[in-house]
């Protein structure tokens, strides 16, 4: 009998341990996913911050460029650089046949002409001389150099030919290939060529959308929260508003995209693909988040504050505007920042209002067509070229960096400025 009891107890203890283990492994799994995730993004993305350059001697031959003896600045600006650019690439292998010459040309980006021109514009004395110039390597060679591209594939499955590889290895052996920090990733707009594509246009698009979103959502949400928390009579109508807000917070984001498409674009005829429309759409989406946060922090202000102000003869409006609202601001602000961080990561509604269009200029105002960072991630992820994979990851890293900064900021505001009432 006693033995039986002990067995039962043991069994129960084992069940206890097992249950605990389940809990631990659930936490472990969740954290494992997070780690794999972050690791994967960083391990594929970090190399995008480096860019491979080929150092090629360029002969600035005035004759080939159709320039006179003493050209003016304008002449240099207008000169033909294609020939000398071609020549300098062909000089890598003097015995190349026509096909091979073509391959040599494709070892650098199609931008190489312009890079050579920049060099001469910087120093016009180079005319007639030969100088080594940094040229952006094509994205395939860039990937080869970073070790992201399998060299042992059969030649016909590779985008880099054996001939190009041979010449490239020759350059590497001579120390004529260099990897430098990829500034153009941050300053260039989007491009069809992976080696030239940058995040400047989508970054500005994101900034403009978020600013528009902030300017609309913040005041409206704060005013609405003040009304609902401080002034609204308790009746059916305010209940209805409340149900509405809670529902809106859980409506799928793509529905807001349909709203933007159906109302803002089709009905109000606002310009397509612009951060203005994107920002308005996002602001409707963030509105409930901010209202809920603002109401919570208004609710946290103790009634004694209001009673004291009222007792001193302040009107209800004065009490609210002079005392309650300022005291609730830290909570409201941190809620706003969290709402904006959500909006910053939102993709689907922006795709529907056309912010997915290919934009190769940097927008200067919210009325110019633009993409946004998450949409840029989507666009690049759908591109077939290998060079875009690391770009996507790098873009994700930039986006996550922003989200982390915003969330930290929200935390700091909350901890530093929020009064603890007790």
């Amino acid at each position, binding site marked *: 009998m006693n033995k039986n009891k002990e067995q039962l107890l043991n069994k*129960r203890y084992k*069940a*206890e341990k*097992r*249950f*605990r283990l*389940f*809990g*631990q*492994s*659930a*936490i472990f*799994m*969740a954290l494992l*996913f997070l780690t794999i995730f972050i690791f*994967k*993004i960083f391990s*594929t993305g970090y190399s995008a911050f480096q860019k491979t350059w080929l150092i090629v001697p360029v002969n600035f031959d005035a004759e080939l460029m159709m320039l006179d003896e003493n050209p003016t600045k304008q002449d240099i600006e207008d000169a033909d650089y294609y020939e000398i650019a071609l020549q300098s690439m062909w000089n890598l292998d003097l015995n190349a046949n026509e096909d091979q010459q073509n391959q040599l040309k494709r070892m650098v980006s199609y931008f190489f002409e312009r890079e050579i021109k920049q060099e001469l514009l910087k120093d016009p004395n180079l005319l007639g001389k030969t100088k080594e110039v940094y040229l952006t390597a094509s994205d395939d060679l860039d990937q080869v150099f970073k070790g992201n591209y399998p060299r042992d594939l059969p030649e016909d499955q590779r985008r880099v030919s054996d001939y190009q590889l041979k010449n490239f290895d020759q350059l590497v052996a001579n120390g004529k290939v260099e990897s430098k920090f990829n500034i153009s990733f941050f300053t260039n707009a989007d491009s069809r060529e992976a080696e030239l594509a940058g995040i400047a246009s989508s970054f500005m698009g994101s900034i403009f959308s978020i600013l528009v979103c902030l300017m609309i959502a913040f005041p409206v949400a704060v*005013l*609405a929260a003040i*009304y*609902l928390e401080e*002034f609204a009579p308790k009746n059916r109508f305010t209940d*209805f508003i409340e*149900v*509405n807000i*809670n529902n*809106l917070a*859980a*409506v*799928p*984001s*793509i*529905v*807001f*995209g*349909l*709203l933007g*498409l*159906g109302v803002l674009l*089709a*009905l109000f005829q606002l310009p397509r693909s612009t951060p203005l429309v994107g920002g308005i759409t996002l602001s409707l989406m963030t*509105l409930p988040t901010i209202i809920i946060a603002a109401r919570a922090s208004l609710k946290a202000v103790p009634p004694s504050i209001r009673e004291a102000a009222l007792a001193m003869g302040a*009107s209800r*409006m004065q009490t609210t505007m002079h005392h309650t609202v300022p005291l609730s601001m830290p909570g409201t602000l941190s809620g706003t920042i969290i709402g904006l*961080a959500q909006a910053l*990561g939102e*993709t*689907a509604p922006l795709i*529907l209002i056309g912010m997915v269009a290919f934009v190769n200029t940097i927008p200067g105002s919210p009325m110019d067509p633009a993409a946004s960072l*998450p*949409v840029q*991630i*989507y666009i690049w*992820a759908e591109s077939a070229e290998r060079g875009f994979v690391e770009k*996507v*990851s790098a873009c994700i890293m930039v986006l*996550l960096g922003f*989200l982390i900064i915003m*969330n930290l900021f929200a935390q700091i505001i909350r901890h530093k400025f929020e009064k603890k009432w007790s």
Partner: protein
Amino acid sequence: MNLILFTFIVLLGFTSYYFGRKKAYSIQSTKKRLTALPQFYGYYLAIWCAIPAFIIFSLWAIFEPTIVKLLILSDYSNQGYLDDELNLIYEKTKALSRGQFTGEITPFIKASAEKYLSLRSIAQSSKAVIVLSIIIASVAYAYKRISSNSRTREPVEKFLNAVLFTASLAAILTTVGIVFSLIFQTIDFFKVIPLFDFVFGTHWYPAKAFVRDSSEALDPSMYSDTFGAIPIFAGTFFIAFIAMCVAIPIGLMSGIYLAEYASVKVRQYAKPLIEILAGIPTVVYGFFAALTVGPFLKELGTSMGLEVSAESALAAGGVMGIMIIPFISSLSDDVITSVPQSLRDGSYAMGATKSETIKRVIFPAALPGIVGSILLGVSRAIGETMIVVMASGLAANLTLNPLESTSTITAQIVVILIGDQAFGDPKTQAAFALGMSLFLVTLCLNIVALRVVKKYREKYE
């Protein structure tokens, strides 16, 4: 131009505030009692400046384009153009006047564009004159009216109250906007495609509904067996089901562990770390699913002799599940922590172990809240877009094999609406009809979930 005018009006507002306050001070200096603080007199005048400006600006924004269009098109009125053609002419005129026109410029259009520009500039300057004169008149009128015994605080506060109330209507307006934007297209869609075919049809192939020539008559038989939404609905719920298979066990167990077992320190670090998963943008999950999980599953399947699609429902659903873990874990954590301690104490007093207490006492007590959190998770999974668009298939297969690709409501909306849309085309309308069904399904789920959670909270508060 508008910006300058706007700045000017704002400046006028500040000046009238200043004058109002000054007048209040001067009344005060004559030893008369004021009925409100001096700044209320200022606010009062500023409101007299803002309201007429707002009214005129909105009226102008509504009527100016229509009037300008009428005036421009009056030149063409006797030449027998159709309405559509007239609209086209007007669009061309506008484009040309903005310098964005890229077609053949006929002298007619050029003349219209010049007329358009001159009309616009007349409109602009007359707007400025009218706005400024009315504002100055109204402020002057109000300035004359205020005296020592005029009430200023009450109207100012009433105005503020009205502003606050209007702001609180924003949520209702948004809901109305959503319904409004969805309903007309949906109704148009069901005029062409019978509701029955949409809800019970098993074949979804919107690409077949190519963009029609607008002159061609609409032939409903052309679209039969094209917009059967069963495969889409099935795919949506299937992927959501896979996601919940991942999210419920992990989320629920983490919630329970965090609430009942974890030490303060573990909780302090693990909880925010898990919540990071909820903060990662969904497009990032989509990229992860498409680039890492999909190919990995495919390779794994091939090595086991299974045929796995690179865009399998399993990859999309699994990653979506990871995304939903924090929603379930946080909410169930909250729910479990709010179960009163007395229930636990009672159970321990009877000799139950911790896990027995959780399983037999706390879990049943917290069940409504947990169900609510799961429903919210399901609603997330159904509405999730980017993961599905990037990692799941775009062709609608009716299948229950998680290794094949399926498509969802959200993915189809994106596929149909990406790029240029032709409103009035059944294909575009189909996207709105899908959006409507998505909105309705998630709305029901949300209402039920929120109600359950609220009821539960009230029970223990």
